[in-house]
């Protein structure tokens, strides 16, 4: 039996990080930002059916970039986690923080394990608070690092450039149209947008709502 070559842990982590980063940088970006009536998810997505943004629970939304099969699995795992928790305890006991922690654990475990391939995904979990100051947006990196973002976050290939551009004119009390315009300003031209919101003005328990093409065109002012 041949012994495996020794690889220093620093080098191993570096290699794995580079591998994951390369996978993610090829993907298009998603912006998650607060606006006057809630939280908006704005994604560059040429497909109308393979979503990057999804509902997890009554007040929790999910956005992801990277390998579709990986984040689709994570999305379903998140729905299972949330539904089981809400069914076992109460609907109010399902929190965005709890879900973000679960994702961080899972991504972190895969990243540092010597056997699994690290996930080539970056996630964002957002929870709509009862009031605007209780809104929460989390970003979870491929290695399980977790960030609590104050007003908005960007995940995906061009995250840094977009983050800097949006940071200049971000306002948490902008209306939905302005928020979508700001978020998509840095996207490449001509790519279809996927937009969804956690809407505080909704009377239903489930606050997640997809913004359809007609409404989106109205918001963007092209008729």
């Amino acid at each position, binding site marked *: 039996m041949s012994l495996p070559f020794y690889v220093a842990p620093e080098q191993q982590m570096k290699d794995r990080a580079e591998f994951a980063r390369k996978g993610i940088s090829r993907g298009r970006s998603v912006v998650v930002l607060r606006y006057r009536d809630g939280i908006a998810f704005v994604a560059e997505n040429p497909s109308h059916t393979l979503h990057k943004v*999804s509902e*997890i629970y009554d007040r929790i939304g999910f956005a992801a970039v990277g390998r579709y099969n990986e984040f689709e699995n994570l999305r379903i795992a*998140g729905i*299972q986690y949330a*539904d*089981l928790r*809400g*069914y076992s305890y109460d609907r109010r006991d399902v929190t965005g923080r709890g879900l973000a922690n679960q994702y961080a654990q899972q991504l972190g475990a*895969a990243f540092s394990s010597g056997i699994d*391939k690290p996930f080539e995904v970056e996630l964002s979990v957002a929870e709509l608070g009862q009031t605007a100051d209780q809104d929460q947006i989390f970003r979870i990196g491929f290695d399980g690092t977790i960030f609590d973002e104050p007003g908005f976050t960007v995940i995906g290939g061009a995250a840094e450039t977009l983050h800097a551009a949006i940071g200049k004119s971000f306002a948490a009390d902008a209306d939905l149209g302005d928020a979508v315009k700001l978020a998509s300003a840095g996207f490449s031209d001509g790519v279809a947008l996927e937009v969804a919101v956690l809407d505080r003005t909704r009377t239903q328990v489930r606050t997640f709502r997809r913004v359809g093409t007609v409404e989106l065109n109205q918001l963007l002012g092209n008729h």
Partner: protein
Amino acid sequence: MENSGTVELTSSFSHYAARVAPESLPKPTDTGAELAPHGTTIVAAAFTNGVVMAGDRRATMGNIIAQRDIEKVFTADEYTIIGIAGVAGIAIELVRLFQVELQHYEKVEGLPLSLDGKANRLGALVRSNLSQAMAGLAVIPMLAGWDLQRQQGRIFSYDATGGRYEETGFHAIGSGAAFARGSLKKTHRPELGEEEAIAAAIRSLYDAADDDSATGGPDLARKIFPVVMSASHQGVRQLTSDQVAAITTRVLEML
């Protein structure tokens, strides 16, 4: 949450829960039938462009009235209503499970189940309670909803083995069902409007309460009226207590 990169790709919440957290699901017990409160009569009636469901508010435990204002009719999702008769504790748990089941499927798959799919799932959930039903802890649901594909209201009834039967026009379940059905037989016509169908349903509950001690009639002193819901292309709406009170008063005046 699973700790590996793969998730079992099931859209069914109850399958998932049975695998990872079986203790959270209703469990078979073989005693206690006489200790548990029973919910009683539920009626459903179709009208020209929708379907209504109404339930009385009484739960009994032997010859004792266990609760005067229990609710036995619920929204299952945006377009479906579920009413349930039998052992109240298990019934309410079954409703909760069914609600999560429908929502879970919708979130995972990105689109809701068809009305037939919902009706079949409910049959499977009832079947999983069969061993309890044999021990006297039976629950029997009734499902009514707006079928988005067919653009009509439909009613489904069940037996304790999970058998699913589509009903035409109207149906009733629970201890006072025979009397309620007899009443609806005389008052229900397929061309009724929504408000007339609601009145017929309330009238049938009144008739059931007249002859069945386990069914509660309208309680004017305490202002406790049946729970009434209606499903149409606009979705499910529950009538407010005041709206039901107004229709009940009219029905009583016509007697």
